[in-house]
């Protein structure tokens, strides 16, 4: 593998770190009941923490993300998933901010999840892993923040499921953060959103290889189900416009050869997406994490905005015009709720043709907005120091 080309806007070579945040003496009690005696978290950091520890930006990843948000890992020429946003001179500027990105609880990229081995039994948790809640993600994020010795984050930033974690965090522990960036997220999934998630989970659980979640012991794998789940979900992350622009009705090979194989270019693309996904994602994590999104409805809690109305951190919410997974009404709903609680809210509707995945794209208006918001946060912090 060639060494990454030196790029002044890249954080360069990065390495994941590992920390045990919960132990039998200090277990993780879960919001929906149950507990985990062992929780390990994999995370990456970029940039330098100030001696005052007041320049930390916490990144929350989406459903299928991981701790590798920026830079390059040893031996790989593939940058992190939010590399266009995070780096020297980029909107999340690592010459100014200390950036933290962990893999989620329940994930499959190093942090404890349903595919991990339960140290108490020596077997993979499978469906014995407790049901998770958005609050549990926040509990673990807070434990990591405390481990790093940080009392208050300059900002917490996330897109999609990441944005939902930011919202949960800001509502429950608003004093932890001065600024919150919630991109392409939702405070309550619609029936349509849940329906798509349900079909994805059905595809996984009906795969004969799923074996009631004990596929690791059985030596099988619900690859077919996970592939179908990914292919379908992937369509919902794009837009009709983006798919037409990219593929139209182009044949994959020299000409169309009617039959049931892969014939159109878009079909080949979906197959490729599924292939790549199988290499990096676990079916059980898909079930657990997507289910957390379905149940998330923080404003339904009594007194949901009581804490944030006291502390009033600055909130930035963004939606994208062609995002039909979480369209503008999702963002406007959470904006209205926060705004109704007296929280200073900035909201932008960003024109984009790329659907839900726009949040991962370097769209100038979007990136300029995040840059302006975070730079303002930095200026305010500098004012507070004086």
């Amino acid at each position, binding site marked *: 593998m060639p060494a990454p080309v030196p790029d002044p806007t890249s954080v360069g070579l990065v390495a994941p770190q590992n920390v045990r945040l919960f132990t039998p003496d200090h277990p993780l009690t879960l919001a929906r009941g149950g507990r985990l005696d062992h929780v390990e978290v994999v995370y990456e950091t970029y940039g330098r923490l100030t001696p005052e520890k007041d320049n930390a930006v916490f990144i929350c990843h989406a459903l299928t993300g991981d701790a590798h948000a920026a830079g390059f890992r040893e031996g790989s020429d593939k940058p992190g998933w939010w590399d266009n946003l995070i780096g020297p001179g980029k909107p999340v500027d690592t010459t100014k901010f200390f950036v933290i990105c962990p893999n989620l609880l329940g994930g499959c990229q190093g942090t404890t999840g349903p595919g991990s081995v339960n140290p108490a039994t020596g077997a993979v948790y499978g469906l014995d892993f407790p049901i998770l809640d958005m609050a549990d993600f926040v509990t673990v994020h807070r434990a990591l923040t405390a481990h790093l010795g940080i009392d208050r984050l300059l900002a917490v930033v996330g897109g999609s499921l990441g944005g939902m974690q930011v919202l949960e965090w800001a509502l429950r522990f608003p004093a932890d953060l001065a600024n919150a960036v919630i991109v392409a997220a939702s405070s309550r999934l619609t029936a349509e959103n849940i329906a798509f998630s349900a079909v994805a989970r059905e595809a996984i659980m009906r795969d004969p290889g799923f074996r009631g979640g004990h596929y690791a012991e059985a030596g099988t794998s619900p690859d077919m189900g996970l592939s179908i789940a990914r292919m379908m979900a992937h369509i919902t992350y794009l837009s009709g416009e983006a798919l037409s622009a990219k593929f139209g009705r182009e044949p994959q090979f020299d000409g169309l050869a009617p039959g049931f194989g892969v014939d159109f270019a878009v079909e080949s693309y979906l197959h490729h997406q599924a292939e790549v996904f199988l290499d990096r994602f676990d079916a059980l994590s898909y079930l657990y994490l997507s289910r957390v999104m379905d149940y998330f409805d923080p404003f339904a809690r009594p007194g949901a905005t009581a804490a944030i109305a006291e502390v009033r951190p*600055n909130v*930035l919410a963004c939606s994208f015009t062609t995002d039909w997974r979480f369209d503008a009404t999702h963002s*406007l709903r959470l*904006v*209205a709720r926060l*705004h*109704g609680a*007296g929280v*200073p*809210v*900035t*909201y*932008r*509707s960003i024109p984009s043709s790329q659907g839900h995945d726009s949040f991962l794209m370097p769209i100038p*208006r979007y990136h*300029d*907005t995040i840059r*302006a*918001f975070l*730079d*303002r946060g930095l*200026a*305010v912090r500098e004012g507070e120091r004086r």
Partner: protein
Amino acid sequence: MTSVTQPSRPDRLRRDLQLLSSLIPVGSRVLDLGCGHGSLLRHLQAERGCTIQGVEIDDESVLTAIQRGVPVIELDIDYQLNNFDDRAYDVVVLSRTLQAVRRPKEVLLEMARIAPTIIVSMPNFAYWRNRLGLLSGHAPRSKDLPYAWYDSPNVHFGSLTDLEALFAELGLTVQRCLPLNTAGHRSAFPAAWRNWFAGAALYELTGQRMTAAAD
């Protein structure tokens, strides 16, 4: 939508906005529709201890407002004010923008729903210079109406008399009317002559309908 009759200077508050801010009680919760770069809101926050929120749809203005720490919601004043709760604010401001919205009636009614006090300013198309302009065969242009007819964002051409008739029709009571000269100061002419001699006017209104409902 940015205030569309006079460009705002980044650092000094425009005179008419200084006058406007003096109408707003200290510590109010203020929503500014078409807040531009957020100059008025920043002034209200710093000088009058107000809780502020802007609405703006122009890209460059939104970005500037964010850079200056003004919370701004990007939405369409004509169609999306339903995102604000009833009585979410003490005061809602629409400065030099009413003539550029598509549905002035609906916008004013929404404002009356959102806050008990409304402050509206609008250029006067019946200002004497504008009348002269028309008599000479040209669409009026002045400090308050700086645009050529073909690139003006203004879509409604009303006089102060017309505007006051609309307020009455909508059940909005004028608490105060400050006629302005073209420099943005209070006009030196008697208020009764405003439809001839004021380049614009600033109105403080209360929504009768909502007040009645609240009682």
